[in-house]
């Protein structure tokens, strides 16, 4: 214990090095990470990578509509993944769509995490009536499905604000709706963690040293509850992306002028029986792969960070 630790290990905590080690030992994690980074980076750099701007309808040529991908007969080398009925380049649309889906997914999860962690910490630490009240609120929230809440809210606000205003703020609306609808997932996990951590002596010793409740919650308990928060975050990003895609598919999400992955899938749906399969299928594959790799990463992370499987020193 008192022996010399090597200089690299010093300063970084033990689980981090363990984390990196098991990452290198897991081919699934490595492949998922590579695919995720590939999708995320190409989405992030979409304005540089995309051949055309899919939001600028002036650039579309109706003569190019419903061209198949380049490897099919009649494929056009200008449009690698073909075009949609308006003559929009599918590759560009997918890149921009993925960008929107990821943005909405990550921001919605940030909203969820903020709400859920704050409420979970307070409920777990304060306990008593406040805990019961907050957790019953979470139960009520969970008893409505996310989609149901989102559909009602989005449909009502679309009717109130009119579709022009709605379309302008569609991203914000989606982030808020998905964020608010799913906070109980975080709140429950964080609360359970806090209840377990609160009994440990380091919390008593923090109280004995005269620290206030806010400092104990945020600085002492929260860092000890980070592993499960990481794990749910990955799963929740995947869920949020699916929720956004479903809402857009139902016409309650992004406007047709700024298609996300879900909207691209739904816009191709009308043409799938006329043989234009690529409009739906290619964005569909991207969505499935994106959600799959995020879930695989989350799964792997849960195995690594699970304290019950983890045999290291406390």
């Amino acid at each position, binding site marked *: *214990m008192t022996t010399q630790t090597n200089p690299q290990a010093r300063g970084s905590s033990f689980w981090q090095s363990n984390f990196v080690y098991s990452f290198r030992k897991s081919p699934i994690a490595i492949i998922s990470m590579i695919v995720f980074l590939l999708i995320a980076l190409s989405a992030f750099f979409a304005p540089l990578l995309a051949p055309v701007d899919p939001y600028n309808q002036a650039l579309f040529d109706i003569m190019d509509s419903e061209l198949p991908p380049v490897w099919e007969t009649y494929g056009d080398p200008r449009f690698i993944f073909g075009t949609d009925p308006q003559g929009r380049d599918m590759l560009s649309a997918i890149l921009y769509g993925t960008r929107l889906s990821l943005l909405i997914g990550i921001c919605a999860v940030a909203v969820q995490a903020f709400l859920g962690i704050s409420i979970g910490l307070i409920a777990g630490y304060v306990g008593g009536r406040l805990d019961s009240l907050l957790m019953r609120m979470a139960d009520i929230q969970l008893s409505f499905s996310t989609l149901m809440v989102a559909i009602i809210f989005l449909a009502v606000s679309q009717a109130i604000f009119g579709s022009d205003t709605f379309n302008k703020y569609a991203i914000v609306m989606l982030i808020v709706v998905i964020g608010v609808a799913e906070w109980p997932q975080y709140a429950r996990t964080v609360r359970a963690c806090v209840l377990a951590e609160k009994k440990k002596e*380091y919390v008593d010793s923090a109280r004995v040293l005269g620290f206030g409740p806010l400092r104990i919650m945020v600085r002492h308990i929260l860092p000890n509850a980070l592993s499960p928060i990481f794990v749910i975050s990955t799963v929740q990003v995947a869920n949020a992306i699916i929720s956004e895609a479903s809402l857009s598919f139902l016409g309650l999400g992004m406007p047709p002028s700024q298609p996300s992955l879900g909207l691209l899938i739904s816009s191709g749906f009308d043409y799938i029986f006329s043989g234009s399969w690529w409009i739906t299928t290619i964005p569909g594959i991207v969505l499935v792969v994106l959600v799959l790799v995020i879930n695989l990463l989350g799964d792997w992370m849960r195995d690594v960070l699970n304290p019950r499987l983890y045999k*290291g020193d406390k």
Partner: protein
Amino acid sequence: MALLSVKDLTVKFAMREQSVTALDGISFDLAKGERLGIVGESGAGKSITGFSLMKLISKPGFIDRGQIQFDGRDIAKMDEPALRDIRGNHMAMIFQDPMVTLNPVLTIGEQMVETLRAHRKLSLEEAEQIAIVKLREVYIPSPEERLRQYPHELSGGMRQRIIIAIALLLEPKLIIADEPTTALDVTIQADIMDLMLELCQTNKVSLILITHDLGVVNQMTERTLVMYAGRIIESGRTREIINDPQHPYTQGLINALPQQTLPGQPLKQIPGSMPSLTNIPTGCAFHPRCAYATSRCKTEIPRTLRFGAVEVACHEVERLKAGQGKAGTGQPAANGNASANGDTSAYDEASTYDEASANGSGS
């Protein structure tokens, strides 16, 4: 004037219908720089005494009545912000298990600096300098490096030294140590105790040592309180209590020490176990286990009486004293129904003690 003066401190826990008394009218004084031991079995109320001195009893517990005068102020009447100033700053506490007392995800340095900066206006560098000085005081080698380490990188003894250093960081007037060495190896126990004794003496810090180890109490403290079922049953100078215990319970504790038994003999136990707080016996709480109990013990709570050099709460202490005198001359301690079979002294022979108590609780 006493640094700490506890008067009639009563702590209760609110249960569904009635409340349960965990501490029943505890009173004691502690002078500046004095070291006090609190001993007793598990469940006697030792730790609750320690926590209530900081007013850190979590719900459903509450201080029912009594005063805790610390440095001229009554802690029992203080509000949270005032208490936060006292805790850590003027009073510190050391816990039993150093493996779980430090926060596992913060470095030693972060925890020490945070403690300092929560109470004093200090820059990061100043706080680190103080932390290094304190780590040196507890004989931690290369303290600069330790500041960057996490608790899991250190051994148990090292961690307990660091916890002591954290307790001393703000130069408190009183340290409450709740079984500080129970979780450590015997060899390290002695080191830690020596260190605490040295630090208390050099820094003129008062110490309340909560333990069930009478050897440690003997080595470390000047005065001792013996607790049973939430009451103080004997108090006085440590030397007197160890060498000449008055209360039957204290006598039992001392006879139960392994040193009191010849090799090969069974250890002398006190029969029975500590009553649960929901079911404290009437009268003297110790009477069902006491070899000398009379009918008076079952109904009347004994008052604390000065008896020789110590204060004892026992009805029969004078009779016991007389019996002990006779035992010394080899006569049976014949008077009193409990030791009625008395072939030998009730003090010296474990077998008699057991039989006598069986008699006592049966009648």
